[in-house]
């Protein structure tokens, strides 16, 4: 699903990791899911790795200068704050993962 999301994004934007966009969250989250699936780990571990990668990706945007999108007009002034797209993408991914984790914990 996340893979499809990335593919969809690539059709409309050329944003890559390091451009200070939601790709900085989505790409590492996707890689983490792929890695944990390859290693045959548990669902809980996959979801926790997804959250961890998404959060680290989000945090990485703080020291970046925006290269694409609206905030790119700020240039150097965009350094020092998290990217709004990376933050909201992280919120969505983590909420999704938490929802599944909490349901699984109850079951």
């Amino acid at each position, binding site marked *: 699903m996340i893979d499809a999301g990335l593919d969809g994004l690539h059709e409309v934007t050329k944003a890559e990791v390091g451009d200070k966009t939601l790709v900085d969250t989505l790409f590492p989250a996707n890689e983490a899911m792929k890695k944990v699936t390859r290693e045959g780990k548990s669902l809980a571990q996959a979801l926790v790795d997804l959250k961890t990668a998404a959060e680290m990706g989000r*945090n990485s945007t703080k020291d970046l200068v925006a290269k694409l999108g609206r905030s790119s007009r700020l240039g150097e002034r965009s350094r020092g704050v998290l990217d709004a797209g990376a933050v909201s993408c992280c919120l969505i991914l983590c909420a999704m993962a938490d929802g599944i984790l909490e349901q699984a914990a109850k079951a």
Partner: protein
Amino acid sequence: MRIAIGCDPNAVDLKKILMAFIKDKGHEVVDYGSDDPIYANVAIRVAEDVAKGVCKKGVLICGTGIGVSITANKVKGAYAACISDVYQAQRAALSNNANIITIGSQVIGPESAKCLVEAYLPLVFDPRSRSVPKVERITEYESR
């Protein structure tokens, strides 16, 4: 029981040892990572998921166990005990209802750390014990 574990980059070796040990005891272990030099990030992730009930208990490790303990205790519903002996491990569960233990990899040897985990994990807080009003004062303050 699903156990969350996480550490800073200094404590990777001890974390791996404890992960294998906890698995051997028949628990599911979820690894919250060890790559982030800002130990607060992993401590927050473990504390939040233990507080939410995603994992039943947590184990956090840094150099002294202090930093991850201070951090985890900032998360509502997380109660982290920084322990270094077996009696503390027992009382953390029985007297203090701690849902996380924190250990210092530069303080505790691997075999001692296993003893701490082994002592702590099976014990459950008794809701009729005389510690109840003391613990309740903490949760009451927390939700003010």
